[in-house]
């Protein structure tokens, strides 16, 4: 499935979830349930925001993650300089694509669950985020040298 198809699918899915939540909100009288539903709604809206941002970033940066030749190519040594420390940007590689984590919320202080940037994190990514639509939301800056 292409990124665009994935994007559309996620989008439709979230919209239908939101409609469901709103329907349920009409029905519930219990404030505990209501809170839970409102929380769901907030989460779903956050997901949409993420998808939209990604779409914008991908368009803005004119980098097509599906077409690696169009973007910057990183050697492991080059990638290793993007440590997120001492003013350096925070880059991470997953499945051959290099992402800029500098301003990604979950990478506060340029670290994430004990992981540091400047590395290929394909293995740990698969073990923690398998099946989650995360990569499509991240800004792409290039690819790893083959």
């Amino acid at each position, binding site marked *: 499935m292409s990124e665009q198809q994935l994007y559309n699918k996620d989008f439709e899915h979230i919209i239908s979830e939101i409609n469901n939540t709103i329907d349920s909100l009409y029905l519930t009288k219990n404030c505990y349930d209501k809170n*839970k539903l409102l929380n769901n709604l907030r989460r779903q809206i956050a997901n949409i925001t993420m998808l939209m941002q990604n779409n914008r970033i991908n368009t803005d940066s004119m980098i097509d993650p599906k077409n690696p030749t169009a973007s910057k190519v990183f050697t492991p040594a080059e990638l290793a300089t993007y440590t997120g420390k*001492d*003013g*350096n940007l925070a880059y991470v590689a997953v499945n051959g694509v290099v992402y800029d984590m500098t301003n990604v919320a979950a990478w506060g202080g340029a670290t994430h669950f004990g992981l540091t940037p400047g590395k290929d994190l394909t293995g740990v990514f698969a073990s923690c985020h398998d099946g989650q639509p995360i990569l499509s939301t991240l800004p792409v800056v290039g690819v790893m040298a083959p």
Partner: protein
Amino acid sequence: MKNKTNSCPNQSEKLKLISMLANKAIASIKNGSLKKRNLVWLELTGCSGNIISLLDGVNPGFRNLATQMVNIIYDNSLMVADGEAAMEKLFSIADDDYILLVEGAVATKDDGLYNVIGQLNGQPVTAYRAINELGPKASYVIAMGACACDGGVTAAKPNPSHAVSIQSVLNRKVIKLPGCPCHPDWLMGTLSYILLYGQPELDSKDRPTMFYSTLIHDICPRRPFFDQGIFAEKLGDKTCMFKIGCRGPVTPVDCPIRKWNQHVNWPIGDDSPCIGCAQFGFPDRMEPFISYNTTREE
């Protein structure tokens, strides 16, 4: 702070929820429609921070818990009995109905002898033995705080006492209330719900969704700064703590609206980053807590 009348209904309802649940449980116990249940507070390999946190709670507070809601059979920090008499009291409950609250991890090194919680019939009772004997028989097991839920600081590397979470020892449902310490509201809300209705809705990691469903980042009052890329350069700044290492974006809990100690303040309100104490992996995977030389260009 807490006296705003125009706050978001979602937030104010959330704060009211705990006292609503507790008052309902107290009223039901008073009129006899609900039985007062036994409660065992088992402190294992930790710092006593969760019992102290519970004592800091209000509406309902510890006084409500101890006098109106449950029979506290055992709690090493507060019970009057000591020595073997205390241990006998603890183990005499095993055949009765009881809810088990656990704070602290379980030290397993050298057959658990790194943490002995008492002596029974002349033999030491290790934390490991206590949880193994009392965990399976309890009607509910609630793990309070980072250590009980996930090993926490007690299991921080190199984990000298080989400490593990409660769940690693017990093959049964353990309700988890992570946090360092656990907020008294999270505990009292969960407990009140259990008394009234049984097990509350839990997420995939067995945390009650009524407290652990939304990321701090998503409801953080400093979120607009993040969205605009305005970041604190040091502690004490009033903007987004992201560059200093804030773990709010990976920690799903309701700190920003609930706050601490009668809802007066919270870490980000104190101009410091969230250190992710209510997320699994704390502290090792949440460090460094404070970073000063990150991606900001000089």
